[in-house]
């Protein structure tokens, strides 16, 4: 499972290198996409992400 350890540390490095606002936004974007993953034709998601961007990035 070394691969998996490497994978996690690489992803952690990417996350840590992000600006604070990008870190906050990435979490929100993944949360929104995850919640809609099993919807066949999710509508309005782009606007939802946009609102989140405007809320998180000042």
């Amino acid at each position, binding site marked *: 499972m070394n*691969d*998996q350890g*490497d*994978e*996690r540390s*690489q*992803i952690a490095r*990417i*996350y840590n*290198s*992000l*600006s604070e*606002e*990008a870190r906050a*936004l*990435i979490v929100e*974007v*993944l949360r929104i*996409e*995850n919640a*809609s*993953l*099993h*919807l*066949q034709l999710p509508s309005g*998601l*782009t*606007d939802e*992400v*946009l609102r989140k*961007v*405007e809320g998180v*990035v*000042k």
Partner: protein
Amino acid sequence: MRLRYIELENFRQYHGVQTVQFAQRENRNVTLLYGANGSGKTTFLNAFMWALYGNLTEDVEESDRLVSDHAWEAASDGDRITVSVTVEFEHDSKKYLVKRSVEAQKQGTEQNLPKSKLMMWYQDESGARKEVDSARSQIDRILPERLSRFFFVNGERIEHLVRKDAYEEIQGAIKTLLGLETLDRAVDRLPKVAQKLRRKLKSNDDSKGIDSLTDSIDEIDQQVQEATATYGELRTSEQSFRDEITLINNRLAAAAETKALQKERTELEAQQEKVLEAQRNHQKARDSLVGHHGYLAFLGGLAAQVHRISDHHRERGDLPAPLKATFIADLLEAGRCICGTELVEGTDAWSALEGWRTRIGQADVDEAWHSLHGVMGTFEEGRNDALERLREVDVDIAKSAQERRALDGRISEISAAIKAVSTEENQESLESAREEFIDRLAKTSREIGRIKDRIDALTAERAKKEREIEQLNIKGEANNRVQHRIAVVKEVEHALRQVRDIASDTTRRRLEQRIRDIFIPVSLKKYEPRLTEQFQLEYWQQMKNGEKIPAPKSTGENMLLSLSFVAAVAAECREGADRGALFPGVGGEFPIVMDAAFGNLDDDYRRHIARFLPGMTSQVVVLTSKAQASGVVENELQNRVGEQYVITTHTTKTNLKEVTEKISVAGRDYHYQVIGSHWDGAELTGVQP
């Protein structure tokens, strides 16, 4: 997902209500269904796909005729007929019941059916049955449709996983397994979000172009979307043409009259592929040569001309040199050195410069002349060398073209010979259909290349427009804020792309190891499987000198490798839940339902596959003809079969001769094909233990 039972009601060949219970015991986990060709084995496989996803696979003919013909014919105009498939299964310690149904009203012979209705229930802890709100979403959470094709498998088509163009399917499966679709969706969505933000930028005197640039990006996005949709459709068509060609090849290889011809053609086509690859490489080499040294071809005689001119100048002593005698003479005449020293005749400074004038002159000119000759000599050698390499590569291209012509010629002869063979199965029409598919495949592949180029060009154009917007002198606090938001959105998009690539590659490597662990012990050859960085499933063999080369294709090994891939995917799902995955992917046990697992294989491979199947996953459903299962397959499976069924074909035809009317299973006779029956269709009968 552990299957408990499936119930078919008037579903295609299956008239009335018919049920199959699936084997549940760990050491007897195989459910075996026997059926003659055309009896309804593929329909049975498709019943799962229809119940869960509302689709039938592409190889089902007349897919809009869902209602059993017998039920349809027996009904009067205006009568209502129900067609349904119900599947009960357990997943994640919960019992689910899925039912898809259509209620049709007969009007004539055409079956114009309304949209199907999907219902799903689960059993709660108290045992009460409760309806699931969003049935399709719940099914996709349990087993996404994209992954289902690896568990509900047509053996005749599974082999395509070993083909180079299956990489997208494999990559897709890996992403679904890992839950990387979340990342995919986010990466697709963020540019749209950035574009919406650009719309909020207010133009001013210095940034008038912003609106038109933003409009251009919208137009490009629209065009990319349309081109991507066309690309997807073309790839699907390309895949189906390849599948059809493979099926025809298999049929020609199975027929005694065309077996040898088809075998030779397969070998020639493999050679043709190699020659084509070599030709492409030669052409690339020529392109590179022309790109880097092509100009030399137009400079013939230049060296001789330079030599002639330089010789002339040498004789005159005015060949350009680092320090010229005239320069010294000018200084002496001016009476002042460039360092400021006054130059008076008879002084040391004057004498020193005089000395220099004597030392340079002819020697200096000679040196410059030699240097120029050296450069021109190298130039001439380079030119000759480039022309020689160009001639060599042209010869290689011509040789490849000649080899291709020879192979094409022999392949055409084989095609004509196959058409001339007279058999019960019309080989001429089969061969003509093959030619047509090859022609359509070539056209589609060309179109795919064209669309791909267009998408690449549009993507580059979009990036250019984005840069242009960034470079505009946009002023104002509100605009600055919007631009900052766009920058953060792009930062997130870039990070998610990286994360997706890392996670996808880690799983690819883990899956490759699983495939190796499964395949190597069961392979009859000394082949090693690989899942390449491009997600191509292939196998290699090690030569005596240790060198590894691509192994020759073999139907048996292809089948084993494809099954190993499916088993590896099943294992990945099984362990997915325990792995603590970063993203919510697919987890749990899944059954494998497989049609035509033993077609076109010799006894050794049938034995190996029969031995392999029960261990693939916790529950295996095998659909086979009696002829393909007799002997080695039944011997291997006899201690692993938990449930057995016979699909009896009923036909109203009476003039059929030499057909198998009964088969013996577990010591009893069962109707296999009923000739002169009062109805046409299929009937499922459970085999008595």
